[in-house]
């Protein structure tokens, strides 16, 4: 089980007059994700989704709050946790000078996949993601969609328990996005836990078990898509979101 409690993250930003002011990009966000669950993190640009997922993935340290994976925390078990995570964002870059095959081998080595299993696993993943035609080409020579498939392959190589996906479909065409969405559904079936952020509300509605809506670093509503629609008396998450921030605006 993945558990994030009351995550706060303070950043400094510059105003017009070059004054430094502190603000919270995350201001007390909590999430609990059980095995086999897909949790959607929804919110507009600048809501704090990336910040939150980076904290979960151990790239950023929270200003306060705790993150645990099956009772393990980053302070004491960083590499242990990271071995069980795959992190992928829409603008994740990978090494252009390596071939897909070399990259996958490197990842297998880094994640400690047994030498004898690695080879078979790479070929299997390549088949599943339809990568055979460009497996031995340099990543720099691939198209965006192909690159993103290599990225998924890299995430699969160590058979992680948790996937942290930050706008993984943004900027992709519908076919490439569908490949990613299928991959998410497949992994869920295998009992994997997926934390998934997007600003495409419809996409989330289809695949998420639970949704967390955030705006300006705080949760404005959470629950199953059905519950949120009921809460806001709307028929889809997009309208629900607008309704939720409308209230926020009145309060201001």
């Amino acid at each position, binding site marked *: 089980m993945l558990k994030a409690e009351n995550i706060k993250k303070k950043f400094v930003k510059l105003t017009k007059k070059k004054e430094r002011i502190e603000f919270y990009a995350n201001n007390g966000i909590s999430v609990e994700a059980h095995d086999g669950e897909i949790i959607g993190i929804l919110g507009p640009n600048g809501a704090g989704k990336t910040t939150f997922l980076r904290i979960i*993935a*151990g*790239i*950023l*340290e929270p200003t306060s709050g705790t993150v645990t994976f099956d009772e393990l925390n980053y302070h004491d078990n*960083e*590499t*242990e*946790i*990271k*071995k069980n*995570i*795959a*992190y992928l*964002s829409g*603008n*994740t*870059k*990978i*090494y*252009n*000078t*390596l071939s897909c095959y*070399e990259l996958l081998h*490197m*990842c297998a*080595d*880094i*994640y*400690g996949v047994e030498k004898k299993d690695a080879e078979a696993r790479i070929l299997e993943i390549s088949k599943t993601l339809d990568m055979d035609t460009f497996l031995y080409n340099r990543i720099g020579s691939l198209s965006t969609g192909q690159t993103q498939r290599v990225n998924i392959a890299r995430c699969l190589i160590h058979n992680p328990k948790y996937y942290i996906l930050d706008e993984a479909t943004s900027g992709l065409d519908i076919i490439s996005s569908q490949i990613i969405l299928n991959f998410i559904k497949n992994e869920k079936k295998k009992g994997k836990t997926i934390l998934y952020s997007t600003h495409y509300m419809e996409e989330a509605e289809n695949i998420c078990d639970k949704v967390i809506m955030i705006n300006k670093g705080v949760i404005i509503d959470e629950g199953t898509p059905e519950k949120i629609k009921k809460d806001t008396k709307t028929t889809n998450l997009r309208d629900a979101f607008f309704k939720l921030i409308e209230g926020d605006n009145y309060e201001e």
Partner: protein
Amino acid sequence: MKNNMFNILKKELREMFRDKKSLSMMLIIPIFIPLLVIGMSALFESEINMPVTDYNTIGFDYELTDVEKNIIEELEINAVIDTVENLGEQLESGEIDLYVTKENNVYTINGDDSDTTTYASNLAESYFNAYKNYLQREYLVSHNVLSDEVLNIIVLEENITVEENYFASYIISYAFFFIIMAITVSATYPATDATAGEKERGTLETLLTFPIKSKDIIIGKFLSVSFSSMITGLLSLILTVISLKIANHMFTIYEGINLMLSLSSLIFAVIVIIAYSFLISGLCIAIASKSKSFKEAQSALTPLTFISFFPSMIIFMMGITTTNLYALIPFINYTLIFTDITSGIINYTHILLMLSSTIIIIAVVLKIIIKEYKSEKVLFG
């Protein structure tokens, strides 16, 4: 996952050897070494072996006797007789290299500060020595004294073995400064590429999600940069040795001396080069990883190129010798010890001090960077 450092090292080396710019930085700079060695030797040689016709035109403001004319002919002097005023003008325009004025028995050699005057005045001195010798002999003979006995009252012979050749030590030291500079310049590029470059290309975020300790990341990167600068250093050394050998045969200034380093000198020179490669790679990685972008890193590293050889050059020109303290000071210790090594002095204490100081500096620098690599400053700073 003890071998994650090797995974990083492997990845870095792969990237480096596939990047044309990294490769050319590694391999092209050493090519300048033969140019430097041969070029500087040629320059020295042309200074030393100036043909006599370049500086043998000497003016006189008085009529010469037959005796004087004979000596002048013997010394291949090209005499010009004219008035003082004209001679002054001719000196200025470079038609003559110096001129001699005479008042009773006082002769004055007049010249300017040009190279040719220096050479010409040596020639004029030889001339006056010969002339004086002649006059003294005449005087003694006319007074019935055995002139040879007086004139050769003492006999001076020279027996100086030319082991320490000024040019040889100069050329070897300059080649070394160039090797140091080549290593420095060639370390900056891969160090920038592996740190600020990885940040700029956006792959650092991915790297930080891998289950790798920052220690392994930094040490892997450090070793790959060290490897690259070592290749530059060793290639430079090989080219130095080859071009010294060629220069040795080609130029008369090195006649009678052996520019070749002995085998043990070579081995210790390699040790110095390897130590320096590690040091500079550590410093470059440290500085570059604190920079936001490739450009910023490159400009932050530029001063290092000067620091790497400038103090050493001054120390060399001042002729300072190695002490235990100097052996500890980075940058100048490598030059001092290299100079010792090439002149056959191998002082193990100094070498050990140099190695210890190198190791300590690298350890401290890397430790600081490893600590910082955990924080988000690396990614967003």
